[in-house]
């Protein structure tokens, strides 16, 4: 491990990525963009997990294994999410989230 790397760099990167992802997930109107933003948030989490693993318990792999789990689940989630978006697109001819409002009153 290269010395001089401070954990706060990783945390800052992860926080920035998460914030960008959250902003995207909340503000973007395109469903695909929202899915991408969610991926960003998950990546931010993964960076955190791996970084803490390295700095706190370098001899164990718990954080890395957890990160792999997250990547796996994220892949499945994106697959499902895209399938739902496609299904909705076929019905509504739109991927704009403002049109996905069946759940209201």
């Amino acid at each position, binding site marked *: 491990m290269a010395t001089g790397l401070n954990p706060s760099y990783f945390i800052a990167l992860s926080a920035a990525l998460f914030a960008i992802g959250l902003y995207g997930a*909340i*503000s973007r109107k395109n469903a695909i963009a*929202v899915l991408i933003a969610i991926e960003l948030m998950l990546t931010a989490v993964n960076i955190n997990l791996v970084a803490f693993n390295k700095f706190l318990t370098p001899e164990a792999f718990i954080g890395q294994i957890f990160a792999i789990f997250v990547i796996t689940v994220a892949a499945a989630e994106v697959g499902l999410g895209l399938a739902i978006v496609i299904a909705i697109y076929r019905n509504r001819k739109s991927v704009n*989230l403002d049109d996905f409002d069946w*759940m*209201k*009153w």
Partner: protein
Amino acid sequence: MVQFALNHAWLVPLLPALAFVIIVFLTRPWPRVSSTVSIAAIFSSFVLASSIAYGVFTNPGFIEKPLEYSLRWFGMEGFTVKVGVLLDPTSTMMLFMVSMVAALIQIYSTGYMEGDPQYSVFFSYLSLFAASMLGLVISSNLLQMFVMWELVGLCSFLLIGFYTFKISAREAAKKAFMTTRIGDFGMLLGLLFLQIIFGTLDLTELAQRVPAFEQFGISLGLLTLIAILVFIGPIGKSGQFPLHVWLPDAMEGPTPVSALIHAATMVVAGVYLVGRTLFLFAEVPGAMEVVAFIGAFTALFAATIALTQREIKRILAYSTVSQLGYMMLALGVGSLSAGMFHLWTHAFFKALMFLGAGSVLHALHNKADVWDMGGLIKKMPITGWTFVIGGLAIAGIPPFAGFWSKDEILAVTLQYATHGHSLGYVLFFMATFTAFLTAFYMWRMIFLTFFGKEKPENHPHESPRSMTFPLIVLAGFATLGGLIGTPWANYWSKWIHFGQPHHGEPSIGLMLLSVFLGVAGIGLAYIFYYKDEEKLRVKQLAERYQTLYKISFNKYYVDELYLWFTRTVVDAGAKVLYWFDIHVVDGIIDGMAGFTKVSGRGLRYLQTGKLQTYALVFFLAVLVITVVLAFGNPTSAGILGGGK
């Protein structure tokens, strides 16, 4: 066989109940099969009941020590309800009588109901009716009896309203059910009191505990109240004044039903219940006086109504009310023997007369007014002569059955009077006068129906053998059934008595009086309705005493009074409650619903349906929680689950 029957007495009510189930679920489409099943069941019950009767009445041990066996039905801590059988001479006599009369009536019904589209249903109801009554008779505790009592009420409802297409029948069924329900309510209250105070409803246990009521911490006043509450049930069921109004209307049912209700099942249930709980009444002289007085009053009251009624079944109905009054009177003066004896003889002659009336209606195609009949005895000799026997029995002419039982009642009433109850003389007078009236109105009916000029528009014919056979059997019992209780050789009171065996002293004077009254009544009827062919004299009398005639013909306006009471008092009360319901109760409910609705209408705008909004709220909430956890004081962190 006898031992088997004694140990399996519960089969007696069970067989007709089974027949009911079989008919309802299996044989309904085949009328003949249904009636055969029904009759086979009731006949087997009768055979069993006869064996039981043989077993009981050959062994005097049953008088002191009845046969009793029971099972636990349900219960909880300190409260067990059993279902059981109590066989003593009284219940055995009833078993025998009820199963026999019911069997005869079912045989009769095969002829009477011939071709009715609901034939099978009719027999299933008859079976259930007989089953409930037999179940009531053998009950060893009052709760079981009450259940059967209600079943009897249900069956009477079904059967009175059997012709569902007739509005009057439906109304009569409702009236019967509701009127008796008033009585049942009082009775249930009485039973609850008994259970709470004495901790049991078992008849034998109650009979031991009630005389020691002071040890149970209650006063004579409360016991009187309980007795009167229990008595309200029989007032309703046995058509005593003032709840007698349903009985005459119950004539709307098919005639065999009327016979069954009036002779064997429904109405005698009340008398039987009072007889069964006589140990309770015997403790409280006040309640006994009430029973006796209501009985005597009902007897006289109904007899005066019967004088002017025109429909043949209605006259018989009022005579039943009147005779039930006699039975209550006998019980009220403390004589179980006399009351049950009259119940026994009455069952035969009244069933006989009702079935006879049914035969007449059958022949005349339901023309019911006695003034439209006449001379029927020539065309219908069997019906006619058996009916005459019934008439002689009810009028109290020796040696027919009614004479002995009525004489016994008069004798015990007189004894009651001479033993220091001044009320007894009033009761005795009412009873004797009623005896005279009974003979008169019965023979008025007989002369108008069977004798005199034939009406050319009628084409009567004798009924089929299935209908005349029961008449002949019943006529036999109406003739000879009383001989077991003559004052000289009173087997009856030896077996069926309350307290010491007792019966009226053989008093020739009383008998002469009784015979004289009967003959006088018949004679008067003969003069008015037979000799006087144009019936001018009675018409003049009715003219002259128009008010009296109208009062009697309109049954003292009791129905109208009840109707008026319902229309004004009950309806006014209902209106007040209706207003309360609409404005207060509904107001509260509507208010709550309205509040929910309004708040919901406001709050639903929070649900935008846009996931991103939800996500934002979610994020902000997490942010707030994180901030609180990170910077908040330890207590708030504790509440939120962090802070360790």
